[in-house]
């Protein structure tokens, strides 16, 4: 049980954490989320008594950390993976910590086995990869077999197998009745690991609720409806029918409709009454990532901008296409593309001339339109994205008459799997 009351930390005139109050309860994995520089690590350090709060206090089991009896046996922490002396072997590092905490030396070999570092136990940790360093840090956290565990970005640098392992480890630890507090800036990771979320931005509490509550509070469920692309008038017809029935309809980029406010059977009935065939009618829940991005949008401290290279670019030779923008660079509405299994369409679409070849062809393949920006588009159509970026990157796009229709049309389907379907 970790309890923070009015926790505040100032460094000079910069307030890192402001009046933060929360509880972390045992028996669950509590995710601690926030953008870079939002005060997660500072809060973690205050919990561990490394930093003294400017005001307020934080206790573990009723005691401030520095007055906690047998602290290393009650609390284990991974703060940052490289918080080890690089010249010391993994085993010596853990042994010194075990001796300091009054833990029998054989426990060191146990935890080395748990994190899978037996092979390199005698090697100096300087040569460890980031992932191995994380494992060593996790081993140190587990050393005292504590009832409260804090992990600051535990999956950083781990391979997929390691990420899965950490995820299961957290859940297993929580299932044993321990308090598990995990910080991360990856919402998708927390969605799979955490039961409860504490979200902060600019050092202030934004949300303290369970994962389910978080989603339902931050996003509405919606239905995706797709009418035959070959008959655009059906789409208009259905839109008006749904709007009349009290639904809220948003067109999506690829021609589908996003419908809120109507249950699925009702949508089907309305379509039937309007005599519109449906190619897709699927329930969707806005992703945690989406809800999180919206919540923290105003609290992001470090935001990238487009690398303009003003005056540095060579004029493009005629006939070549302007370069594709690098995904994720300088696009405020951007968020991580979905994992591959989500990227495609849920149903097999009839032939390449389907949703991509027909209606959207103009959007993708218009001459002089420059390279399509697959990331900017969803943000533009999502009503919640406040800073809808211009649809085109501000790269000076010289007309490329020969290239455009021929080359960019095949390029479009290739680009599409990376397109984030914000309706996951």
């Amino acid at each position: 049980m970790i309890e923070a009351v009015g926790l505040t930390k100032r460094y000079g005139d910069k307030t890192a954490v402001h009046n933060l109050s929360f509880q972390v309860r045992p028996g669950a994995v509590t995710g601690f989320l926030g953008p870079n520089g939002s005060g997660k690590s500072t809060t973690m350090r205050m919990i561990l008594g490394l930093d003294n709060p400017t005001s307020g206090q934080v206790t573990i089991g009723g005691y401030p950390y520095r007055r906690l009896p047998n602290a290393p046996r009650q609390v284990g922490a991974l703060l940052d993976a490289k918080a080890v002396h690089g010249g010391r072997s993994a085993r010596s590092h853990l042994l010194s910590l075990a001796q300091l905490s009054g833990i029998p030396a054989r426990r060191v070999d146990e935890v080395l086995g748990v994190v899978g570092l037996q092979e390199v136990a005698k090697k100096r940790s300087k040569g460890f990869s980031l992932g191995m360093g994380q494992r060593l840090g996790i081993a140190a956290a587990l050393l005292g077999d504590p009832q409260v565990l804090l992990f600051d970005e535990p999956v950083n640098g781990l391979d997929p197998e390691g990420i899965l392992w950490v995820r299961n480890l957290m859940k297993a630890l929580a299932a044993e009745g321990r308090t598990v507090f995990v910080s991360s800036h990856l919402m998708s990771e927390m969605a799979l690991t955490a039961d409860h979320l504490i979200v902060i931005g600019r050092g202030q509490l934004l949300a303290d609720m369970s994962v389910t509550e978080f989603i339902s509070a931050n996003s509405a469920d919606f239905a995706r409806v797709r009418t035959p692309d070959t008959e655009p008038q059906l789409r208009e017809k259905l839109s008006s029918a749904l709007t009349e029935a009290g639904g809220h309809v948003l067109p999506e980029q690829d021609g589908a409709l996003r419908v809120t406010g109507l249950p699925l059977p009702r949508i089907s009935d309305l379509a039937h009454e309007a005599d519109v065939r449906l190619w897709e009618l699927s329930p969707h829940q806005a992703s945690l990532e989406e809800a999180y991005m919206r919540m923290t949008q105003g609290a992001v401290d470090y935001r990238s901008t487009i690398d303009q290279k003003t005056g540095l670019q060579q004029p493009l030779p005629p006939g070549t296409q302007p370069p594709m923008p690098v995904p994720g660079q300088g696009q405020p509405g951007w968020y991580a593309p979905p994992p591959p299994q989500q990227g495609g369409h849920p149903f097999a679409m009839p032939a390449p001339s389907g949703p991509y070849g027909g209606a959207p062809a103009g959007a993708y393949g218009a001459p002089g339109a420059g390279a399509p920006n697959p990331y900017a588009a969803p943000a533009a159509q999502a009503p919640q994205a406040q800073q809808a970026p211009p649809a085109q990157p501000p790269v000076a796009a010289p007309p490329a008459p020969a290239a455009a229709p021929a080359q960019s049309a095949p390029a479009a389907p290739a680009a599409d799997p990376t397109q984030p379907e914000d309706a996951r």
Partner: protein
Amino acid sequence: MSTHQPPMQQAPAAAPAWQAAPGGDRPGYSSPIPVVRTHLGHALASEWTKIKSVRSTMWTLGVFVLLVVGIGLLAGVAVRGSGDLSGQSPLTLGFFGLLIGIMCVITLGVLTTASEYGTGMIRTTTTACPSRGRVLAAKAIVFFALAFVVTLAVVSFVAMVQASMLEGQGAKSPSTEEWLKATLGISLYVALLGLLSLLVGSMIRHSAGAITIMIGAVLAPLVIALFMNASSLEKVQRALLEYSIPSQMGVFYDNTLSHSGPSGWEPLWIMLGVTAAAYAAAYALLQSRDV
């Protein structure tokens, strides 16, 4: 889509356990590993493991031993060849190697604390032992003991070899007190100087910065005094000469620049006072600062 289904399904399952967990009290999990009430002894064992498991310890102490033994024996051989010791104590010759050797002790002292800050290890250490004073005490004790034992062994070895080399070469045979000062006394002094470096490292929290400060503190007074020729500054010059660390070390060998400064065992008490003050300052800073 389906990927976000798992948390949806888990959350309700987790909810009862969540609510059933007692609010303020200690939760259900208790470790099968017996809980031991830790004390300074645990911290000492831990610091001993730390200091012996990094290569810098071996390197600095290895170079220290090489310098003291090497320069000491070379000086012995050189003097023996000329044979003009003219009634001086042969122990004096051990001084030169040690003058350079203290740089190694200073470096090791600084590294013992400052490297933990450089690597971030201090956060791991302080998490494992929130009683910061205990960690500092353990570091101080382990380092002091190690530096003292190594210095005593090396200095005694060199002193004995030199004494036997120069027997019957016109050197006077040293008295018991001279022996004690040139072995036990100087070893305590060097170990204290190293401990002072350790404390400065703890205060400065930066290896290079702390080493520079310590080397400056050892050398600067002497160097400044050498060029201080104005007559009005004569007193300052004399104080700098007499109380500079090399001069104080020379006292243990009766090999000083002037005859009015500290004498006998006085340098040891001066160094003890300075180190105690530094310890108090390092302790206070460690308690109040963020790690």
